[in-house]
């Protein structure tokens, strides 16, 4: 039985885990907000500062979904998969990179013009060497993510998976990550698209969601 053992949300100037708000910052700027989340939790990871906005958002949401629940010692590096999705790929950085081309093309921006770089950043941080996939859809499609990740879990291609949605374009952003494991935890629920739908529309977060 595959269970969701943790759920993180980063959007609209707040951070939420398992339905509880962990941090909020009314500062309207995205750059400042992402930095304030990093500083609030006291992580020490200099690589964070060179990441683009999308990777920072995904990295923070992954830190939060793993926090206090993921037992590293239970897994080999090959056991953990990362399967992410969004609507606009790396378009936020694509625009910044292409603006640099008129002057001198920036290799440090170009490397972030692929959405799966965010998966690489999460894998480097956690020494995750398992399955990867990045999918694009017009909006978060829990049904597909559950079907694909269940394929991986049920065939032992992975033993745990971070999956979900990390979208960012300009100042609009939304991250919803789920930790899926083969054990049941204190807060765990069955890994189904109905449960994901329920979790992403839970009231704590819903009140603060940006309008569609």
């Amino acid at each position, binding site marked *: 039985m595959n269970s969701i053992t943790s759920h993180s949300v980063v959007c609209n100037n707040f951070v939420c885990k398992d339905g509880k708000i962990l941090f909020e910052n009314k500062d309207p700027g995205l750059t400042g907000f992402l930095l304030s989340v990093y500083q609030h939790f006291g992580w020490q990871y200099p690589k964070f500062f060179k990441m683009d906005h999308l990777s920072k958002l995904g990295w923070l949401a992954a830190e939060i979904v793993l926090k206090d629940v993921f037992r590293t010692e239970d897994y080999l*590096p*090959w056991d953990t998969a*990362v399967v992410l999705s969004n*609507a*606009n*790929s790396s*378009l936020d950085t*694509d*625009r910044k*990179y*292409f603006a640099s*081309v008129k002057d*001198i*093309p*920036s*290799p440090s921006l*170009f*490397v972030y*013009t*692929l*959405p*799966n*770089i965010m*998966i*690489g*950043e999460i*894998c*480097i941080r*956690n*020494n*995750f*060497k*398992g*399955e*990867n*996939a*990045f*999918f*694009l*859809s*017009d909006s978060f*499609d829990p049904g*597909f993510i559950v*079907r*694909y990740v*269940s*394929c*991986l879990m*049920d*065939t032992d*291609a992975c033993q745990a998976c971070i999956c979900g949605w990390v979208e960012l*374009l300009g100042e609009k952003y939304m991250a919803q990550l789920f930790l899926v494991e083969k054990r049941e935890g204190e807060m765990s629920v069955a890994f189904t698209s109905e449960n994901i739908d329920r979790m992403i529309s839970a009231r704590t977060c819903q009140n603060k969601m940006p309008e569609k």
Partner: protein
Amino acid sequence: MSAVFVASHNIISPLGSTTAENFSRLAEGISGVRRHDDKKISDQPFFASLFDDAWGLLKESLPVQYTKFEQLLIASMSDALLDSRIDMRDRRTGLIISSTKGNVSLLESGTDDPDLMERIALHHSASIVARHFNFINKPIVVSNACISGVLAILTGMRLIRSGQYENVVIAGADIVSKFVLSGFQSFQAISPGLCKPFDEQRDGINLGEGAATIILSSQKKYGSGVRIAGGAVSNDANHISGPSRTGQELFQVMTRSLREAGLTAGDIDFISAHGTATVYNDEMEAKAIGLSDLRSVPVNSLKGYYGHTLGAAGLIESIITIQSMKEDLILPTMGFERPGVSEPINICSSLLQAPLMNCLKTASGFGGCNAAMIMSK
């Protein structure tokens, strides 16, 4: 687990608009890579495999609002669907699109309006393609750097094996634009001449344009003699733009793929490598081949014929492998002369007739991703 059969396929590249045309050009030793001087793409001349401006590959005229990227996908799918007997309007038929950058060249228009941003989104292109062929199911879009094509085939395999689909159409394409070429130039990753995979003088990649389609089915009656027997994906967890120094993570997916296919290293007759002709990629791949005990197995890279076609590469190279299996003929590695990797692997440098029962495809890309896949007769 249900078997996954290859029902049909197509490649559209500067070398031809069917798989058979492409394969015969490759067997004749013809490359699509040549010197271009096109100021719209680069201030300096560059080597790449590009479609001519007047590319007459489309068998039907398509609406002008379809971009070159979408027209390529549609043209490739049309040919692959011709002799497949697959019904796109069936609930049990899925569609997967693979690309790294799709319509990103639209950014070159310089405007920044929301409609243009929507037009660039890959899921938008996928919807256009799905509507064109009347697919019922919503398309799945894979965009995972240079392993996109192999990952798209593995995704199709997994969705068929788990019973979610009976047939899956997998199409991929990428085009060469100023955006992509300037980026690889900024990385000093572009070869000043023809690329030389695995060679001691190798000095970087050539880019290429292309589209390809592969149709998979759980129905043996649709099959054409080759199965997708297994595959796996991993991450190096080491660096976002440089490959693993050890090859351990690619080796790991090669091992998992063999296990899933119920094979051992001794069963592999041929390896279609990623072989981008950068110093580090080819060295890493050679190490993984060594770790897998596959040193004596013939290996090739097709980058010298096609350049690196990014999101189409894994599809094109897998389809050429399938054609090689049908003809029991391994193609030489264009551009390779003298071995330049630390492992003594068997780089194929001339046409080689050999019975091919089980073949391995590998790919690696930015973000530290690796993929391996087994094709069997």
